[in-house]
C-alpha cells in the first residue's frame, strides 16, 4: 500500500486550516524573541499564506518530494520569506523556526484525529519528514541570499579598489590596495588603459604601497600592465617599493630593470613632472 496516498494530512490541513493557523500563530508569537524585527500582522499574513499554499500542495497527495511541480509555489514563498528574514537580521535558527514551530499544532491535530497508534506513528513521521525538508529549504535559501550579498560586495570592492586618478595634465596615478590576483589585474589593466585613452596621458604611476606581498605572480601581473600601458604610448612608473619588498624582489630574482621604480608616490610624481617638462617651484 502506498502510504502517501492514504495520508490524512491533506485532509487535516483542509478541514482544520483555521484552527491550525491560530495555534501556529500563538506558537510563533510565544517563541518569537525578536519582536522588533517583524510585525505581528505581517507574521500572521505570512502564516496564512504559507498554510494556504501548503494545503493546496498537499492535496496532490505528494508529501515526500518537495522538488515536484506542485510544491513550486511553496518553495518560492519560503525562499522569499528567507530572503526578507536574512535582510531583516534574523539568524538562521530564527528563520527556520518559522517552519519548525508548525510541528506542534500539526502533531496535536494528528493525535486528536487518529486513534490507531501505528497509523499515527506513520502520519507523524510523514509530517515531520515534510516539515524538516521545508525547514532545510528555508536554511538553504537563507544561506543563498547571504552568499549573494558576499558576491555583490566582492564585486563592489573590486570596483572600489581600483580608482585611476588624474594627478596632473598627462599624469595618471593608480594606487593598488590589497592582493593583486589575476581578476584584480584584469580590472586594473582595463581601467588604466581606458583612462589613458580618455585623458591622453603619457605617464602612469602604479603605486603598490598598499600591496602587502609582492611575489612572482604579482610581479608578472605588474609587468603585464606596464607592457600594455607602454603599447598604448604611456610610460609607467612603479612606486611604493618599500625596503622589505625591494629585498624580496632581489632574492626572488625578478627583473624590473626595464621599469622605472621609485620608493614613494611623491618621488614618482616629481619624476613624471620632470618628464613632461614641468617643474614645481616654491613662491
Amino acid at each position: 500500500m502506498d502510504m502517501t496516498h492514504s495520508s490524512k494530512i491533506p485532509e487535516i490541513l483542509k478541514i482544520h486550516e483555521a484552527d491550525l493557523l491560530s495555534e501556529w500563530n500563538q506558537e510563533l508569537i510565544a517563541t518569537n524573541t525578536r519582536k522588533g524585527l517583524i510585525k505581528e500582522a505581517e507574521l500572521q499574513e505570512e502564516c496564512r499564506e504559507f498554510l494556504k499554499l501548503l494545503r493546496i500542495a498537499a492535496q496532490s497527495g505528494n508529501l515526500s518530494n518537495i522538488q515536484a511541480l506542485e510544491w513550486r509555489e511553496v518553495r518560492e514563498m519560503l525562499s522569499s520569506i528567507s530572503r526578507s528574514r536574512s535582510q531583516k537580521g534574523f539568524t538562521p535558527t530564527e528563520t527556520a523556526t518559522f517552519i519548525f514551530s508548525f510541528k506542534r499544532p500539526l502533531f496535536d491535530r494528528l493525535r486528536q484525529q487518529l486513534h490507531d497508534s501505528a497509523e499515527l506513528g506513520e502520519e507523524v513521521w510523514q509530517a515531520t519528514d515534510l516539515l524538516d525538508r521545508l525547514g532545510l529549504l528555508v536554511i538553504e535559501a537563507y544561506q543563498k541570499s547571504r552568499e549573494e550579498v558576499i558576491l555583490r560586495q566582492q564585486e563592489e570592492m573590486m570596483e572600489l579598489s581600483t580608482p585611476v586618478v588624474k594627478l596632473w595634465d598627462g599624469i595618471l596615478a593608480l594606487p593598488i590596495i590589497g592582493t593583486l590576483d589575476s581578476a584584480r589585474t584584469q580590472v586594473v589593466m582595463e581601467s588604466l588603459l581606458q583612462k589613458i585613452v580618455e585623458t591622453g596621458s603619457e605617464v602612469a604611476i602604479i603605486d603598490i604601497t598598499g600591496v602587502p606581498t609582492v611575489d612572482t605572480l604579482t610581479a608578472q601581473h605588474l609587468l603585464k600592465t606596464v607592457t600594455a600601458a607602454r603599447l598604448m604610448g604611456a610610460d609607467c612608473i612603479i612606486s611604493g617599493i618599500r625596503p622589505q619588498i625591494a629585498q624580496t624582489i632581489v632574492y626572488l630574482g625578478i627583473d624590473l630593470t626595464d621599469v622605472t621604480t621609485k620608493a614613494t608616490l611623491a618621488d614618482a610624481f616629481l619624476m613624471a613632472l620632470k618628464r613632461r617638462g614641468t617643474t614645481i617651484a616654491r613662491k
Partner: protein
Amino acid sequence: MQKIEEMKIQSSADVVLVRQAVRQFAIEVGFGLVDQTKIVTAASELARNTLDYGGGGTVKLETLQEGGRRGLKLTFDDQGPGIPDVDMALKDGFTTGGGLGMGLGGAKRLANEFEIESVVGEGTRVIVVRWK
C-alpha cells in the same frame, strides 16, 4: 612553546589565508619586517605551486626553537603529478605553466634551508625553514 598549524590549500583564496597565517607566525617568532616579508613571499610562491601544479594540498606551519635561535618551518605537501626533473624546476625562468619561472628558485633563495622531495605520480613535498 611550539606552535603548529596545518592548513588546506584548495583555492587561490587559501593562498591568501596561508600568507596571513605565515605572517602571524613570523610575528610571533619575532621576525623583523624584512624576514617576515621574505618568508611570507616564499610561502606565497610555494602555496601557489601546490595549488597550480600539485592540484591542491596542505601546508604545515611550525615554530622552531633550537638552542638560542628561533625559526619558522613550512612544509608543503601535495599528491599531484610530481616533478620529473627537480634541478630543472629550480632553474630560473623554467616554467611549465606560463608563469615567470622564478617561484621555486626564488623561494629557495628567500629561505635559509630548503628541501624538496618529489616522486612522479605520487606528489611533492617542499620544506623551507627561515631562522631569525
